[in-house]
């Protein structure tokens, strides 16, 4: 006589064994389906997001909002690198006839800043509190005599756009925050281009002590930047240290034969630059 119980157990084991591949395939298909579904839904969201990003106001008025941020051009060493973009986007381009006008916010790309971060050695890690020092080539200059830099608030320059009599009038608004922002970045990556920009900015704003200080920092990081020497000397003159300025310039000219430095030296000595 057959052993039914034992046979049923064997059958159950066989059944489970034969169902395993089916279960595995089903589960994997289910997981794949979920992944595909989530992937496709997320990509759909992204696509929609791109379309919806521009802020569009359905009105007949033309509103242009400006968002200004400074951009530093390192290679060219231009004085002002604030890039402003005003873009008028016609609604038809994006949404056909549904929208008549729209406003677009554009902000400058600051990716180059990130790239710079890796290229420069940290400065503040070793020099945290000491803001007066000597450069390698200027051992004669006593940096300790330089007074500690006081933060001077720069007057903000405002930029606003007003629509008056169908004409767009643009006013530039430069705030102290821009400089702070650059200083913050400089503290992070010690990029001499940033400190030079700050030095120039402070010089423009009349804060010669800070201009001197940042020019000095730039010089410490890279003593071959002509502009840092010039701003440094100019700031010294403005701070009433004409002699120090001429001495510094002479040393620099002797080393680099810079014509700009020579012109400045001549101007200082002749009293043209005060």
């Amino acid at each position, binding site marked *: *006589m*057959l052993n*039914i119980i034992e*046979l*049923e157990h*064997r*059958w159950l*084991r*066989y*059944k489970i*064994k034969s169902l395993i591949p089916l279960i595995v395939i089903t589960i994997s298909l289910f997981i794949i389906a979920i992944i595909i579904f989530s992937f496709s839904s997320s990509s759909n969201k992204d696509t929609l997001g791109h379309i919806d990003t521009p802020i569009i106001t359905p009105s007949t008025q033309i509103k242009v909002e400006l968002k200004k941020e400074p951009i530093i051009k390192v290679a060219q060493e231009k004085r002002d690198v604030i890039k402003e973009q005003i873009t008028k986007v016609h609604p038809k381009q994006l949404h056909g006839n549904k929208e008549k006008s729209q406003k677009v916010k554009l902000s400058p790309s600051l990716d180059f800043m990130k790239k710079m971060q890796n290229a420069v050695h940290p400065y503040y890690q070793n020099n945290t509190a000491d803001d007066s020092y000597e450069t390698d080539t200027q051992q004669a200059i006593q940096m300790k005599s330089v007074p500690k830099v006081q933060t001077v608030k720069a007057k903000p320059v405002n930029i606003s756009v007003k629509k008056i009599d169908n004409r767009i009038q643009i006013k530039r608004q430069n705030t102290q925050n821009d400089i702070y922002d650059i200083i913050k970045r400089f503290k992070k990556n010690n990029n001499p281009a940033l400190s030079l920009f700050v030095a120039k900015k402070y010089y423009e704003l009349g804060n010669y002590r800070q201009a001197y200080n940042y020019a000095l920092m730039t010089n410490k990081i890279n003593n071959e930047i002509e502009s840092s020497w010039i701003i440094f000397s100019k700031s010294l003159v403005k701070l009433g240290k004409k002699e120090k300025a001429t001495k510094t310039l002479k040393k620099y000219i002797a080393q680099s034969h810079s014509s700009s430095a020579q012109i400045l030296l001549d101007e200082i000595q002749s009293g043209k630059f005060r």
Partner: protein
Amino acid sequence: MNSIFVNSKDVFLDIVNANDYVQLDRVSTIYQSLKDSIKKPLKMILLYGKPGTGKSMFLSKLHKDLSSSQDVYLYQTPILDESEFYKTLAQDIFKVKYSGELNFTQFMKIVENKKKEEVPVVLLDEAQLYSEALMEKIRLLSDTRSVKFVITLHKTEKEDLIAKEHFQTRIWESIELENASSTELKIYIQKKLMKANCFDSANMFTPSAVNRIHKITNGNYRDSNKLLYTLFDLYTIYEQNHQLSKLKTSQISSKLIEMAAIHTGLINA
């Protein structure tokens, strides 16, 4: 009184009985062609196929059908000793009793002396078990046209070789038997059950149940018989244990088919 399952179980006992022969369309055609071949002046007829395809049953049925009208002798079990083989044939066909050893030359003399008008037909089952030397003698015997042979062979490489070497030029008819298709298997099962008056159990074989059985047995009659025997055995035990309510009785349970297949070794579990 036996239950339907006990009666159904007995239907599938693996015995070769011409009375249990089930007529199927394809098999009937083959059978008819075999019968026709015997009437022809053929020296030898080869019946071959895989084990369990019904070769033995075929020979048995042929013997039963021809014995009333023709001089036919069936040897289901091979006679492996040569002398014994000749002695058996001499006694059965030519009614010559021979004491002591009988060799091929002596046997041929008997055949010549006792030549019959109507050529006797000798049916040899499981011919692959005969030695090569004996098969050669059988070939020579068939060449005399004194005896006609119908032999069955398992279809394997080795047996194909035997067929090639010994019978290629002599066999005028070779018939291959194959496994049953799903439809043929269903007819086979139902006909067998109905022959034994097991109508209820015959009705339990739905196409899906038969397909399942066919998938397991590959349509092999011997394997199918084995499986069905165990299947009805299981039904009987469930009935005795009053566990039949667990199973569907309107159709054959897939679970029991698989259990029977596991028990018979057709499914490796």
